């Protein structure tokens, strides 16, 4: 409900929206509704048992108090507080999208909506030529040929090291993202899933749901099979050539994205925006559903951001969840 400009809604729209949201609320499980805490609330525990105090808790005069606004979660004897609407909190193995803010010694600093910038080491990137080798001083000088400032990159959280949060790019599908849009949503709307990379073949674009609330919608790029080509340049490590002024016409032509695809990218982006305004979880299925909905209603891309469509989406979602529940 947050962030929706209620004034822009007509009276009937307002009513419809409220009804839909109410319905949704009634559908949601009530398990944790009484477990929400704010900062300095004490958490009821059985002091006879040994308890483990996890994230978001602290010991104050023998009482366990919350240091976060959120939901109290319990796993066996472990108690921790899951923040409600906070910045992104990285976990090992998360897929994140970020923006390069700085190129420094052997590493890029990447903004990922965390309390500090993440570090992407040069050595944590696969070399563009696919050769396995130690990084040289030459490579270091040419780091900008891989990522420059303001590039959007996709990576995996590797873990905390002594000097901060480290990212890594395991394979070729990680790395620089281009030919698309970056959207930022509150991180809690993106749930951790098995798959965060999606390729929507029918529309011809890629969707990457970063756990940090950065979402990428962009032209589909075929994952390169780097096996064959590197056979040839095996033993002669290529020196990376800076291609700073490679933005000539030819390059542009190569980077040209078809209009049709671009339209779909925009549709998907708007779908994410609608979901973010409504505060709905963002998953592949829902985004697909909204794109289809907008197409079936014959809406223009910009019309997807209208208040009417927003209400329709809310209603549809309420309906969908209701039928899901019934089916169960």
């Amino acid at each position, binding site marked *: 409900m947050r962030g929706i400009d209620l004034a822009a809604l007509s009276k009937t729209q307002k009513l419809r929206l409220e009804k839909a949201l109410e319905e949704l609320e009634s559908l949601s499980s009530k398990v944790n509704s009484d477990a929400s805490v704010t900062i300095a609330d004490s958490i009821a525990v059985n002091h006879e*048992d*040994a*308890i*483990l*105090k*996890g*994230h*978001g808790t602290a010991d104050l005069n023998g009482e366990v108090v919350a240091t976060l606004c959120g939901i109290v979660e319990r*796993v*066996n*004897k*472990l108690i*921790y507080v899951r923040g409600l609407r906070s910045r992104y909190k990285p*976990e*090992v*193995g998360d*897929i994140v999208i970020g923006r390069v803010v700085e190129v420094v010694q052997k590493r890029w600093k990447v903004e990922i909506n965390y309390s500090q910038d993440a570090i992407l*080491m040069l*050595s*944590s*990137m*696969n*070399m563009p030529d*696919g*050769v*396995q*080798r*130690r*990084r*040289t001083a030459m490579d270091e000088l040419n780091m900008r040929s891989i990522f420059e400032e303001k590039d959007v990159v996709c990576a*995996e959280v*590797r*873990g*905390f090291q002594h000097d901060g949060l480290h990212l*890594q790019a*395991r*394979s070729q599908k990680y790395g620089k993202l281009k030919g698309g849009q970056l959207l930022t949503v509150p991180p809690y709307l993106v749930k*951790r*899933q*098995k*798959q*965060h*990379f999606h390729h929507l073949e029918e529309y011809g674009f890629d969707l990457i749901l970063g756990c940090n609330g950065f979402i990428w919608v962009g032209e589909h790029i075929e994952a390169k099979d*780097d*096996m064959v080509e*590197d*056979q*040839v340049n*095996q*033993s*002669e*490590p290529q020196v990376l050539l800076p291609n700073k002024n490679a933005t000539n016409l030819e390059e542009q032509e190569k980077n040209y994205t078809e209009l049709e695809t671009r339209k779909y990218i925009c549709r998907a982006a708007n779908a994410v925006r609608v979901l973010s305004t409504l505060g709905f979880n963002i998953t592949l299925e829902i985004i697909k559903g909204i794109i289809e909905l907008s197409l079936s209603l014959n809406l223009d891309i910009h019309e997807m951001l209208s208040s009417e469509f927003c209400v329709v989406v809310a209603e549809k979602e309420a309906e969908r969840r209701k039928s899901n529940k019934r089916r169960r």
Partner: protein
Amino acid sequence: MSSLKRKTSEEEDNGRQVIQRSDDTVACVHDVSYPDGYVIPVPNQQQQQQQQQPAKTFPFSLDPFQSQAISCLEKGESVMVSAHTSAGKTVVASYAIAMSIRNAQRVIYTSPIKALSNQKYRDFKEQFSDVGLMTGDVTIDPNASCLVMTTEIWRSMQYNASPVTREVAWIIFDEVHYMRDRERGVVWEESIVMSPKNSRFVFLSATVPNAKEFADWVAKVHQQPCHIVYTDYRPTPLQHYLFPSGGDGLYLVVDEKGKFREDSFQKALNSLVPAGEGDRKRESAKWQKGLMLGRGGEETDIFKMVKMIIQRQYDPVILFSFSKRECEFLAMQMAKMDLNGDEEKDNIEKIFWSAMDMLSDDDKKLPQASYVSNMLPLLKRGIGVHHSGLLPILKEVIEILFQEGLIKCLFATETFSIGLNMPAKTVVFTNVRKFDGDKFRWISGGEYIQMSGRAGRRGIDERGICILMVDEKMEPSTAKMMVKGAADSLNSAFHLTYNMILNQMRSEDGNPENLLRNSFYQFQADRAIPDLEKQIKTLEKERESIVIEEEDSLKDYHDLLEQHRSLNKEVHDIVMSPMHSLIYLQPGRLVSLQCTSSDVDVPTIFTEDQLTWGLVISFEKVKSVSEDDASIKPEDAKYNVDVLTRCVVRKDKLGKKSVKIVPLKDVGEPRVVTVPLLQINTISSLRVYIPKDLLPLEARENTLKKVLQTLSRSNEKGGVPLLDPEEDMKIKSSVYKKASRRIEALESLFERHEIAKSPLIKQKLKALQMKQELTAKIKSIKRTLKTSTALAFKDELKARKRVLRRLGYATSDNVVELKGKVACEISSADELTLTELMFNGVFKDIKVEELISLLSCFVWQEKIHDAAKPREELDLLFVQLQDTARRVAQLQLECKFYNAITSSFFLDHEKQVQIDVESFVKSFRPDIMEAVYAWAKGSKFYEIMEITQVFEGSLIRAIRRLEEVLQQLILAAKSIGETQLEAKFEEAVSKIKRDIVFAASLYL
């Protein structure tokens, strides 16, 4: 070309070897496995010229297999080198390292054992200097170009996606045949499958017959060519001798050309076994004692052996035995011997004490108990002991002394046979059987090869000598298998662990199914498929080739026959049951017997049982060993009947007698044989007088003659009168009546059957039976085919995932949850039980020392029989641990139980999946809790050694592993944000990490 060169150089420096070499013309076999659809790149001229300069030159001329392997490396392609330990595989490894350093690439060298890693680190450090070491215990220069590590470390580096994985161009897996290790082998498979796609491999392995298969797998998984260089070549040829127990000579059984000498083998065995058969058992028991104690003051065999070896100048010698205790015991028997001169003694003392100087004064006291007082004098006389129970430092001192040639006679366990080049002139096997966890078994050909590989020092000895001490009568084939046996093939020992599944699930690309699909296990299973299909096809063809006319009615008839037969058997069993028949088995009763059929395999359905007659002498109850005799009713017990009949007695080669019952008119001697009651076919109503004394042959012959007469007389009258079951024997059970009525009905059916009258009925039935057997065979092969086409371990993976879900480690969408993330970190102990303990807050309340003591249960596996129970508070903790373990095991059992129901198809897999709750709980052993508690409290090591009777080395290894587990727990606590617990684990590490337990290796 190169092999030719080698030969000429050999000719020059050693005339003797030429003769030997001329008959093995192929010094090495080279082969390449290409992945499917691989295009061989055209060699680039320019590139080739660049590579003219070798990365490393060696001061000696290379063996053909070495230069072959190196040329593969220069091409930038993976290679698998399979050769004997002494052949010099290390050359290939060092070349790969040199090449990588030249190309500014990283290279990783992994070995299965920490000690071996330490030694290799020292070796490579001398050669290349840019070398680092990472084992669980120590990390040195992790940024070096060449990293030496254990395979486990490499695996966890890959799971953690260390930047090293992106820089490594070459990965060297030493002793890769460790992959067949039941417990740890899976680590190699994981590591190889997960290795970076663009890296190249060097596999060094003992000789394995299926090296090609392994290379095919690597080629397939990594889509790159993989070369195989295989050689059987030994730089020094071996002679194999037998030393029979109690004897005093050596018998050459395999000469240096590899010829097995049957005659001298027989001689050896004959001198071993005394004439009598019956006391074989006693003999071998005596032998065991003889080995240990010596017979009444005589010299023990082992003493004689060593004396002989020294006299013949076959030293230095390594004597392998299969237990640590035996090793020490044997060494103690050498106390009287002195093999070293004064100068050598001084040297030994110098080396020994300079090594011991590393230890603190308190720790120096430690070896006092058994070692400095016992060991040093022993060492000074040139006798050493080497096994995993020794203090690591002492073990290393002994290795160094051995390499220096100061130890002439080393008693070692199998562990000495792998790793660094430490050859002797002679190798002795003090036993030919080893205990492999469940039972004693003969050592395999592969193990024999591995251990005998220590015999013969290159460039010093003309040939190596291998002596096998045999204590039991071995079949020549067993012995042949051992001394001339093929190497063990490299088979996958893949199995799933929770840690593996969770780690795979955690990463976006990871997928446990993928790992399974790429495993060597799956590869080997898939490989069997075409073979199985072919088998099915040939069998089916064979089946079709059997054409039978009127098959349906014949089948009908066959079924009837079968029924008739089984009914007859039923009736027979009733009639011959002890309850009915015993009273008629008086001495002299004439009974008919089944002859022992000459060929057991002949299908018996249509052959009439051959019957003969005999006289009952007596009968007796078969004594069952376990049960109480009184509790069995006479009717239920089994009986044997002694019958006088005609037999043929044969003796086979080994003197085992076999008695065959033959028809009375055949040739043979009259003899009283014991047969089970059921072998008696029918009981006649006749009795014949038997003389009192049957011992003289004549008496028996006469009696049988009388029997024959009686029989022929009654045959004239129309058959021998038999006891009628109903009238004479008064059998009135309804089962009997029913069965006999059905037999009658069936017999009337036979009459009506047309086909029965066909003249070729017997042949036809035979054909039909063959056909049915083929069908059954095809069916069973098809079943195995089905199991192997399915993804191996698929069901187990499902079950394990279910366990993870139930325990809340992962969601149904395979997303790893908080608990799962903790379990991900724990790879050195049982991850589920440990995680559960942690989440149940068990670690929270207890003191640090108690925590350490509790964790010791996770790392200790040896069984100690009379271990003292730990004190109460520790025992209480242990009970808590057991409860948790039981819960975990119970849950696993439940989850897998579903599995067993839903897929009744995979019969073998079910068995694998079932876990025994109690044995799982018992796998946590509290034996060293007290000792570790004391260590954590700050006791000196010699003090805690007084508490337990375990070997020092074992305890040290356990504490080191405990530290590993603690390090993993620190990471785990960090990931759930429990800072107090994290601090507690840190404190625990600082408490145990001190003094002798973590003393650095001498090799560093």
